[in-house]
């Protein structure tokens, strides 16, 4: 008798992916595509312990759904996730003993599918447990921390992605910082500009009539094209005033990238600010005016606080979009994690691509969680 359909679907997907996709791939060098190694081949000796959490997860599908079972399922999912990563590391180390030094042992499709399934099973179990959001975030941080410890312990050193990381340790750290700096440099002016613009657009229809279509058009321009459009005027500017170039103002580099990111992020922030204000109850507005609030007092005391949830969702969209788009900025020499990603793409080194992409995904997830916490807090205060 099936009692947890979500878990059943996840398990079936896992059972389908595990035998049909490669768990690891072993390539003699970077240029040759690798030979697949299945999960079955990797499951031997003490690695068989991976089956224990898998069986526990299967029990979770059929047993009566109680809190204790959900807690067990959560623990099993977290255990499966960590054991899976450890197995990939230990199997890679085993393969590396017999393979030539230039051989590349990469993570295969089955690994990624099972990893995602374990993460989904974990979050579903936490949802069923009705764990409060901050505690859920803490548990997630514990799992990520355990993965970090696994990485630091050297257990994963034979994997190609870790090797790529080891070879560019300093460049990688610099890329993360550069990426985060670009996001911050773009988001701060976006907020400072977008909030007042959104308020103004709500007040003056004439402004809204051309501002939003313009920002919408900007959104439809592909990012590379927008970088290109900015290249000409900015390099012209730097050509006319060589002094500017010394401050890093030119057609390529961080400045045009940040300008483009701001142009993209303005739409969600401005539009949501304007829409949030439009959604404020007319009764509260009439009461505020009738009681004697000046337009400014009405804005700060009534309109903005009531529009805040909508404004924050706009900021969330802007933040996630900027974190992703900043990767493309590497194409005009802005650096960041995109630089690592493109380096990998051009060299046909998938592990290097992943090394650039994984931190971007983690950054986006972290930003998303932060906004979730903020919005959740807001809702609890209000409702």
């Amino acid at each position, binding site marked *: 008798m099936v009692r947890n359909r979500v878990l059943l679907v996840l398990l079936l997907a896992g059972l389908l992916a595990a035998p049909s996709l490669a768990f690891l791939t072993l390539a003699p060098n970077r240029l040759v595509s690798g030979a697949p190694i299945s999960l079955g081949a990797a499951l031997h000796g003490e690695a068989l312990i991976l089956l224990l959490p898998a069986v526990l997860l299967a029990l979770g599908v059929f047993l009566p759904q109680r809190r204790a079972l959900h807690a067990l399922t959560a623990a099993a999912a977290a255990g499966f996730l960590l054991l899976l990563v450890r197995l990939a590391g230990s199997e890679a180390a085993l393969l590396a003993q017999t393979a030539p030094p230039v051989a590349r042992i990469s993570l295969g499709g089955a690994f990624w599918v099972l990893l995602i399934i374990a993460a989904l099973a974990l979050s579903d179990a936490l949802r069923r447990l009705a764990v409060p959001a901050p505690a859920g975030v803490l548990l997630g941080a514990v799992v990520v921390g355990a993965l970090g410890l696994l990485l630091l312990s050297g257990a994963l050193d034979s994997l190609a992605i870790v090797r790529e990381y080891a070879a560019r340790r300093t460049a990688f750290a610099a890329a993360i910082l550069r990426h985060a700096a670009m996001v911050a440099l773009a988001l701060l002016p976006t907020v400072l500009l977008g909030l007042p613009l959104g308020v103004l657009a709500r007040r003056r229809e004439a402004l809204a009539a051309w501002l939003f279509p313009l920002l919408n058009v900007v959104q439809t321009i592909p990012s590379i094209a927008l970088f290109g459009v900015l290249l000409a005027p900015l390099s012209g500017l730097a050509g006319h005033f060589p002094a500017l170039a010394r401050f890093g103002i030119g057609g390529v580099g961080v400045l045009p990238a940040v300008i483009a990111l701001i142009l993209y992020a303005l739409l969600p922030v401005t539009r949501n600010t304007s829409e949030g204000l439009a959604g404020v109850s*007319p009764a509260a507005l*009439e*009461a505020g005016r*009738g*009681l*004697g609030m000046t337009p400014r*007092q009405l804005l700060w005391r009534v309109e903005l606080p009531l529009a805040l949830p909508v404004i924050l969702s706009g900021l969330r969209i802007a933040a996630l979009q900027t974190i992703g788009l900043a990767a493309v900025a590497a194409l005009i020499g802005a650096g960041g994690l995109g630089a690592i990603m493109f380096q990998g793409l051009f060299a046909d080194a998938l592990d290097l691509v992943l090394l650039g992409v994984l931190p971007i995904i983690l950054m986006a997830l972290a930003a998303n969680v932060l906004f979730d916490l903020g919005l959740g807090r807001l809702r609890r205060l209000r409702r």
Partner: protein
Amino acid sequence: MIEFEHVTKRYGASAVVENLSLAVAGGEFCVIIGTSGAGKSTALKMINQLVSPSEGRVRVNGEDVRLAPPAALRRRIGYVIQSIGLFPHWTVARNIGAVPELIGWSKRRIRARAAELLTLLKLAPDAFLDRYPHELSVGQQQRVGIARALAADQDILLMDEPFGALDPITREALQAEIAEIQRASRKTVVFVTHDMDEALRLGSRIAVMDRGRLVQAATPLELLTAPASDFVRDLVGRDDLGVKLLGLATVASRLRAGVPAPGEPIAAGASLRRALSRMVAEGRDRLGVVDGDGRPLGAIHLADLLRR
């Protein structure tokens, strides 16, 4: 003291209020009544400058309202609306304290005032001060809305169909309370409604508006006995005119002092309409009359109801 002097408000070509002249004396409870679209709400909003007249002048305490900064003017005038409009992100205490906060009262004084007003409006301060509006029933919300309008103890109170969205029982209770508050504080109240019973019950004077024009401004008794036009007559209602007249006077005004009467007595403060209703329902032609503490005062007979 509120004066409308030949006030007209136009939106485009159509006049919503046309050549309105009306003076509301200090301490008066003035009800503006009319069908929807009569311009009564627009007239009210011209007092606190939420609407500006196209022509003419509105004066509050002798001063043209257009000369004062709108925000400062409105803080001196209490305002209650049908849609209540409590600020959903503020507690009851902060909602009530909205105007005192704007004019710089201390936190402690605001909270004490909020508690005092909640008590006046029959909500327990301890239970309600820190609640949020969405946790309250609509009736409780409008009590808070009234408390908010009274917070800074303004001399003037504007009420725009404040009880229109309430159920009959809550409406009646709040009518009694606002009447009592006005009696005790001698505030000048301008009250907009389309409900004639409400107008007769509350108003010391009733201004009838029809399509932007003032048709008649008179005491409830004058309105019932000498309607200025067929429109007023219809608005008052032809069928139950007599019953409405009885509603304007109390049992005390027709008391036969010292005369005993059997059966369940009626309070001296009750309306004659209520006395008639009791007599009809109980099949009796006389009722004993008692004062507020239940002491017998005398009796009232059916024939007394016909005395003018």
